[in-house]
């Protein structure tokens, strides 16, 4: 009847500890590849790293993950690799390729919903999806700062986890939050072992792809407001650059402040009228 209480450590393990350890190990492997001039493995690992580290968290949160996939969440964990890898497409096809790859892979996640949608609904969702993905990937391609772009992304992910948690699903919020842990660890690791700017930008872009995929799941399955999600994603449109005269703390402070503002608005948007529990 009334179960044993869950320890905070048991809750923290999949959300913080597993992705933290995985990101440290994979980040060091990436550093080794770069150090030994292994360009091709480093090129792919830079993006795969995010997915691999995140999956260690996701499988600890979605404990009933099964293969072959049966539920939407099973599909989410597998299909999310596709948009992550699509961020490595050659630049001339990247915008369209990323949009189409993300859409088709999410169609696997959305299978139970597709049968209940009209043709017009599916058409509008496809157009919206392609537009959104196209804007996001082209905006992330313009990024120049390997210091500020990840910080902005981490802030967006953390606020989105809060928005999703308040809106409905704590599980989806945990999965989102664990993504911030992975990128945060890579960003910190870069302060110690100095990965290349190219790898950091690729890792951040892959994080963005995975984050958008989780946001889509939150919208379709956890009923999180599309307006709140759009607000959260607004800082993606900002082009982050490093001004030579700025100190590190000034860069962090401005990036956090600018990225946090839409997130705070999104939290206000979904804040429930009643007390939560």
């Amino acid at each position, binding site marked *: 009847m009334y179960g044993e209480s869950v320890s905070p450590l048991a809750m923290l393990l999949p959300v913080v500890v597993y992705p933290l350890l995985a990101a440290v190990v994979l980040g060091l492997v990436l550093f080794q590849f770069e150090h030994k001039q292994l360009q091709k493995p480093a090129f792919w690992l830079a993006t795969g790293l995010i997915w691999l580290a995140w999956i260690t968290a996701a499988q600890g949160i979605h404990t009933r993950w099964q293969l072959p996939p049966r539920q939407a969440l099973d599909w989410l964990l597998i299909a999310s690799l596709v948009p992550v890898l699509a961020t490595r497409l050659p630049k001339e096809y990247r915008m369209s390729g990323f949009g189409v790859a993300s859409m088709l892979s999410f169609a696997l996640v959305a299978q139970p919903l597709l049968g209940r949608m009209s043709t017009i609904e599916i058409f509008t969702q496809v157009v919206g999806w392609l537009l959104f993905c196209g804007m996001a990937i082209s905006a992330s391609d313009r990024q120049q700062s390997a210091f500020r772009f990840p910080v902005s992304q981490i802030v967006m992910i953390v606020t989105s986890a809060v928005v999703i948690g308040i809106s409905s699903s704590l599980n*989806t919020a945990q999965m989102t939050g664990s993504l911030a842990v992975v990128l945060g660890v890579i960003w910190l690791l870069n302060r110690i072992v100095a990965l290349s700017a190219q790898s950091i930008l690729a890792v951040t872009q892959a994080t963005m792809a995975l984050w958008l995929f989780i946001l889509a799941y939150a919208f379709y399955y956890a009923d999180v407001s599309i307006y709140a999600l759009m607000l959260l994603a607004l800082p993606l449109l900002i082009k982050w650059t490093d001004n030579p005269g700025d100190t590190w703390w000034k860069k962090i402070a401005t990036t956090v402040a600018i990225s946090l503002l839409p997130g705070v608005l999104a939290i206000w948007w979904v804040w429930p009228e009643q007390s939560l529990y």
Partner: protein
Amino acid sequence: MLKSMLKPVLLSAALISGSAMAANYDIDGAHTTILFKINHMGFSETVGRFNSFSGNYQYDANKPQSAQVAITIDADSLDTNHEARDKHVKSPDFLDTKQYPEISFKSTAFNGNADKGVLTGDLTMHGVTKQVDLNVVKIGEGKDPWGGYRSGFNGTITLKRADFGIDQMLGGIGNDVKIELFIEGIRK
């Protein structure tokens, strides 16, 4: 002679009228409630209900073993009198109503008499189908003031939600879900 001829005729008529009583009933949503109770942190029981459902049943007081019931519940109609909690329970953390919009029950057997018994059937919830036993008590039956014919039953069952893959927050929210049905049907 006449008496001996009449006897089978009357018996047949009685059987026909009896089978006519084994009629199909549509569940009357206005007089039917599907409630559930679940333990909250060991302090209390939280009560909720489903506001939208449909179904029908066959019932014959003379042949209760032939009773059949089929109910479909709109999982998204869950109502615990707290909007934020409803959204959470309907999310992928618990019922995942976007993916599994219906909860259904279809009986397979009945053991008991005309007044009470155990209705066995397949309950499908959260994409998982399990055989369950529903304790049923008949409340009454008869003609209503509008010329129709009604019957009513109460049912109770306790499920373990983890058996249906709903295993989040077992620390704070109980595993046992007590379901109470108050059903009234109108004969077709």
